[in-house]
């Protein structure tokens, strides 16, 4: 029985010696497990060590301490030859695509199997199969310089997949692309994950990417994993400050204080924020409270979206009614298990 764990980091540290005296600890006691078939996101600011971490998986970087496993093999103990073999099972794509400018698209895609025992025709056949998969068969005999960024990344994906790898490492694969192209590449990656069952590791600094396709995430801050878990629980209940900051980048619920100042609250009005914190059935809260407590509820900002089929986000609303009605409403809302209620007081939500 194959274990469902594909990649495992055990107490991994990585130190770069910058010169004889100084050294720089880029990864600090990293522990993580990537399950087969999952889409695993690694998020962090520039310089956090994301690239270093992902490169430990295929042995381009060697851990200074600790162990990195790919299936049952300890990557940092493999011989050069064994490492090259294992790299056949680990595809990788980059922010800068890294296509060979002097080779045609077909030659680029064929490069990983150029020195294999496969014949020319078999190679061409596989190349075309991969180009079909990424939707670019007609570009086979052109050169990379004639492609757009999104098309280049598709070719890079085709090249990374030609060896039928078990895992695809994506280092900021969409960071050089516009939002629309990013979406189409993410869609393609998702399709590959679903159709081929290939495990994906996505390194990014954009929370939107994580929100769009990841199953699990690890948040990296200055070489340390500060938080990891499944995407929904992290989105609804982030613990670390950095995670919160990243999540805020994808939420429209963060009403700026300048906007709040423009809302003139009169007596008997209360500004509140409701956020979903669990995936229990969504109930029409606004209509329930307005009927039940005869209160007016004006929505100032609303941002509710579905994340993997579960509600995420919330509403900023002004409750308008007698003090008693407002108190009852708040009590009712606080009794709801799937939402969190914050009340605006002294210039912030508490």
């Amino acid at each position, binding site marked *: 029985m194959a274990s469902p764990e594909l990649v495992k980091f055990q107490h991994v540290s990585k130190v770069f010696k910058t010169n004889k005296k100084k050294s720089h600890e880029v990864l600090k006691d990293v522990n993580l497990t990537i399950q087969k078939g999952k889409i695993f996101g690694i998020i962090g600011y520039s310089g956090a060590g994301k690239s270093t971490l992902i490169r430990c998986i*295929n042995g*381009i970087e060697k851990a200074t301490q600790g162990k990195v496993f790919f299936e049952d093999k300890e990557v940092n103990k493999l011989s050069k030859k064994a490492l*090259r*073999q294992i*790299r*056949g099972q*680990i595809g*990788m794509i*980059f922010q*800068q695509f*890294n296509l*060979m*400018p*002097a*080779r045609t698209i077909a030659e680029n895609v064929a*490069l*990983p199997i*150029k*020195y294999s025992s496969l014949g020319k025709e078999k190679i061409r056949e596989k190349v075309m199969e991969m180009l079909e998969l990424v939707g670019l068969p007609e570009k086979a005999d052109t*050169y*990379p*310089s004639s492609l757009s960024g999104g098309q280049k990344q598709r070719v890079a994906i085709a*090249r*990374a997949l030609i*060896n039928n790898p078990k895992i695809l490492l994506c280092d900021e694969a969409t960071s050089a692309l516009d939002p629309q192209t990013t979406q189409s590449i993410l869609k393609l990656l998702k399709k590959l994950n679903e159709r081929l069952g290939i495990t994906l590791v996505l390194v990014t600094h954009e929370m939107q990417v994580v929100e769009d396709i990841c199953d699990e995430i690890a948040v990296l801050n200055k070489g340390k994993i500060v938080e990891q878990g499944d995407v929904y629980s992290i989105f609804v209940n982030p613990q670390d400050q950095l995670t919160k900051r990243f999540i805020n980048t994808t939420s429209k619920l963060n009403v700026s204080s300048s906007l709040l100042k423009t809302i003139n609250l009169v007596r008997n009005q209360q500004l509140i924020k409701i956020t979903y914190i669990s995936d229990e059935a969504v109930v029409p809260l606004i209509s329930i409270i307005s009927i039940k407590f005869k209160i007016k509820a004006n929505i100032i900002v609303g941002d509710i979206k579905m994340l993997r089929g579960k509600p995420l986000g919330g509403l900023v609303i002004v409750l308008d009614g007698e003090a008693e009605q407002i108190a009852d409403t708040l009590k009712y809302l606080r009794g709801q298990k799937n939402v969190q209620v914050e009340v605006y007081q002294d210039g912030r939500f508490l």
Partner: protein
Amino acid sequence: MDAFFSKLFPNVASNLDVFNAAIIQTLQMVVISGIISFLLSLTFGILIVVTKGGGILANKIVWNVLDKIINLFRSIPFIILIAALIPVTRIISGTAIGVKGTIFPLIIGITPFFTRQIESALNETDDGLIETGEVIGLTPWQLVWSVYLHESISSISRVTTITLVSLIGLTAIVGVVGGGGLGDFAIQYGYQQNQFDATIACIIVLLILVSIVQIIGTFISKKATH
């Protein structure tokens, strides 16, 4: 035509056989030492790129030895180098004069410069491409062949052009010390016998030679750029 030529270049016309032989000698020197030093420089250039710190076959000792030798030979003026090499040239070529005697000093004179040129051409290869080669599991020599060399064809042909032009210059210098060729012709007839037309004729032939080299180089370089 012949009459016209004899009028413009009277001294060349009267020594036409010698002049033609000089052209052939120059071509022999350029082609033979060019090919050999190209192969040597390519080898040394590759070695110095792969063995440098952080290179795909990093090796401090090999790199340091190559680096120092190249610098040593580059610092010796060519005319002194020829003189210094005479005993070795005699052993290797059997003679230190004539075309045969020039090949060895020409190779030693041009290879260090050529190696540096090849090195800089190979170093233009984007690090991302090298990393990609490693990621897809290429061996170091597959990397050299399929990434470094393949991606540098255009730059290599550019630096080869530059080097060949320098080499043509060196063939004129070896002429002075008994090597024959156009340099020898220009000195013997043009300079020592005050036949200015001989010098001009040499210049014209050398100019044509350099132009041909440059046209071919540019053509290959363009062809290899996509």
